[in-house]
């Protein structure tokens, strides 16, 4: 199955199961978790069921297009179910069936993996789902976002699209994937991976990046003061991506890392508070 069909199948499945099919977010994010459709919507009481395809950037994972399954930009399929349903696990297994995976002849394991995203004050408890040793999905019960304890808790299911497609299409190498029709993954992505690996690891201008990190931060602070928490959050995302490039460039010391993460976390905390206040006002 092509990557394109994998996306379509997942959209189909989750749409049939009550999700609104959103578009991915248009600012660089490290994971679907960081999108406003996740970060904001898991806060507060309102029910929310969404599914969307989200390209995600991990500058540090770049391998100059040489690693068979690691890339600096990969594609996630993000599902948020709020409140977390009692049958989340079996729904997920059904989605694998829908993709054409015979779950009875593959070793599907829920392996402890609690993620935390300190820069947006979010963490969850859950698993990485392994299929014959390949990590295909993160399955997580969201506990906190923006430093706020969540009630109700959401279930977050994040499929790794390349991994899934490789599995479904029996490919050993990500670059042998078909994207759709006559377009191959390699054709679409090889040059991009090469150039971005060189940029992220070797060429990125450290002073420039430090500088814009500060400017993004200042802008976020200013917007928070004006109660414009949505654009403020965009600037936190920009900070986060800038931080990730600096990190790939090995420009961040351990001590500095703590400080920068705290900067982003504090911004996220304030943004989450503003959002909650706003949401409460709206609901009277």
């Amino acid at each position, binding site marked *: 199955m092509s990557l394109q069909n994998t996306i379509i199948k997942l959209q189909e499945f989750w749409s049939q199961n009550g999700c609104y099919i959103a578009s991915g977010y248009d600012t660089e994010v490290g994971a679907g978790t960081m999108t406003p459709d996740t970060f904001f919507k898991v806060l507060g009481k309102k029910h929310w069921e969404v599914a969307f395809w989200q390209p995600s950037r991990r500058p540090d994972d770049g*391998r100059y297009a*040489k*690693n*068979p*399954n*690691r890339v600096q930009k990969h594609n996630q399929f993000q599902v948020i179910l709020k*409140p*977390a349903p*009692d049958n989340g*696990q079996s729904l997920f*297994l059904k989605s694998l069936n829908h993709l054409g995976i015979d*779950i*009875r*002849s*593959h*070793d*599907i*394991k*829920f*392996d*402890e993996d*609690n993620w935390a995203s300190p820069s947006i004050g979010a963490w969850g*408890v859950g*698993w990485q789902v392994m*299929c*014959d*040793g*390949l990590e295909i999905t993160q399955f997580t*019960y969201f*506990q906190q976002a923006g430093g706020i304890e*969540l*009630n*109700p*808790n959401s279930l977050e299911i994040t499929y790794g699209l390349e991994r899934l497609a490789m*599995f479904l299409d029996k490919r*050993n190498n990500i670059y042998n994937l078909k994207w759709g029709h006559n377009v191959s993954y390699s054709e679409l992505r090889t040059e991009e991976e090469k150039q971005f690996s060189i940029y992220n690891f070797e060429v990125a201008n450290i002073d420039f990046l430090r500088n814009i990190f500060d400017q993004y931060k200042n802008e976020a602070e200013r917007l928070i003061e004006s109660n414009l928490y949505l654009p403020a959050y965009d600037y936190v995302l920009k900070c986060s991506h800038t931080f990730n490039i600096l990190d790939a460039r090995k420009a961040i*010391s*351990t*001590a*500095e890392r703590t400080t920068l993460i705290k900067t982003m976390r504090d911004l996220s905390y304030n943004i989450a508070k503003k959002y909650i206040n706003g949401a409460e006002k709206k609901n009277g």
Partner: protein
Amino acid sequence: MVDFLFELGVEEVPASEIKNIVFQLKDNFQTKLAETLVKFKSIEISATNRRFVIYISEISEKADDKEEQILGPSKKISIDENGQPTIALKKFMEFNNVILSDIVEIETKKGLYLCIHKVTEGPKAYDILCNIIPEILGKLTFSKTMLWNESRVSFIRPIRNILCLLNNQLIELEFAGIKSSKFINGHTTLSESLIEISSFKDYIEQLNKNFVIVKEKERDEKIINEITEVEYDLDVDVKIDDEMLNYYIYNNEYPVVFTGNFNKKYLELPSEIISTFMIKEKKLLPVYDKNNNLLNTFVGVSNIPDENHFVSNGNEKVIQATFEDAKFFWDNDLKDNFINLRENLKKVKFQNDLGTFFDKTERLNYLIELLVKETNNNHMYENIKQASCLCKNDLVTRMVREFPSLQGIMGGLYLKEMDSEEDLWKSVYGHYEPKGYTDKKLDHIGAGILSIADKIDNIAGFVSKGIKVSSSKDPYGIRRDANAIIKVIIDFKMNFDLFKLIKLAAEKFTENAGDQKKLVSQLQKLFLSRIENIFRDLLNFRYDVVNSIINSHDILFAYKSFLKAKDVSKIVETDSINLLITLHKRLKNIIKGFNTFFISENLLMGDEEKILFEIYKESKTEITELILSDNYIQACSKIIEMKPVIDNYFEKVLIMAEDNKIKENRIALLQKLYELLSKITDFSLIIESN
């Protein structure tokens, strides 16, 4: 009599937590059933990552009746002069709902009282279980908890199902928003619908049919047998440690061992890297040939039978991609000059405001001087000194950032790759080991020295920041580090005084003499209690032997103390031990309360006295030397040889002579003997054998 069956169905609980939960469940059930007077024959608990099962056989249908005596008023105020009950007694009867014939007299310390014997009928086991199960579940503690539903109950993972049967009767209860039922879930993927259960026998049968081997022991045996089969078939060694075995046992309800291969070109990477990536990243086991060379084969455990080799093939693909990552990290790290990375340590903080890792390496550099000298390893001085400067450099490499468990090892490998001398790279390679007393012995003494320095620096630093160790908590691994130090000292037969090292390490964390003294004394106490604990609980020396040795003044010569404990343990098994104990106690009693006196030879009066003194002088040198060379058994024989002369002395000589000078001189001689004997150990603390 009925049987009780309970299953808590959960979403996958981390394997590492399961034993702890099983322990708590068993403990809490036993305590609660004892408290509520419910009798039963046996309690069995088993668990997988998806279910905790409690089976109690032959549980009584109701709790024992409770008999109690309720004390009423004294007889004096209960019966009036006409022999009629007073108001006090009437109230007592009314309150307890009894009649006069229920009242009996009882003799107490305070005189004659009235009382009743009340028998309360025991409640039904059904009702008791209804109450205690939610209570027990609510009291479980976990290292990390989560919330998942409206009940807002926090638990380790979501609870999805509760089966609760007394024989075939459903016990109705609710916990975390889940109502008990007669149904269970089977295997995650191999069993689809809920399964109805009618009895324990049925439960086991149904699980078997649905690919769940519920007993740990059976899964354990299945895994081990299948691994042994692989070893036999391929003529190889598969290395599995307890952590991985535990992981496989609990993470699979239907474990099936499989094997696979990978491209040989990855074997060019250091084997430490390959095995770490296999184990930590992919939970696969490395396979070795009979000469301990790593092979391009792996072993894993699947949760389903792998008839089509899908699992094996899938893992083959995955492991190659993982090795590509390993190669990427290794190649990239090698591009940096490893020696120069030390500068980067100036930006990496060590814990709890204890400076940077650069500062730490400077302290290590200082500490190893003493250790190298005291352990007579001057020939390695330059290499160990350099190792102490470079040993933390790998913390800023890509590989260690991804796999912290490779710290030290990577530093060693990078140095080896640069053709460093063996004493240098091996010292760095092993210096995080051992991690406690029960780890295996280090194979290079340089690593041992650096390990001691690294650990005493951790301990002194943390203790100086006020971090305390309690019986249940040791978040900074202070106790573990201290145990490891003692282990290295004993393994490498290092004969030096830990006290000196403690003082030196404490210097760097204190600003004035007062603070330093305090820290040194804290550390001294810590090591004393560690030595005591290791000797008693890990080396199984008799507790009285350990008590007596702990009181020696040179206890912090840990290796010496170890040899002493070994010898004294042998001596206590011989007939002479009682002689030594008696002698020690007798001397101790006599000299108790006296100041220390000097012997003057011209005050020695009779032959008995003179002979004893002569023999003492002769033996003293000999015994002292035996003690110095750690030959405590012979030292004791020497004492035993003196025994007739000492006995004769006690028999013939009046110690408490009228002449004060003579008395003090005699005391002085006994003090000398006591001192000599005490140099071996405090025999008075050893229990006499029958």
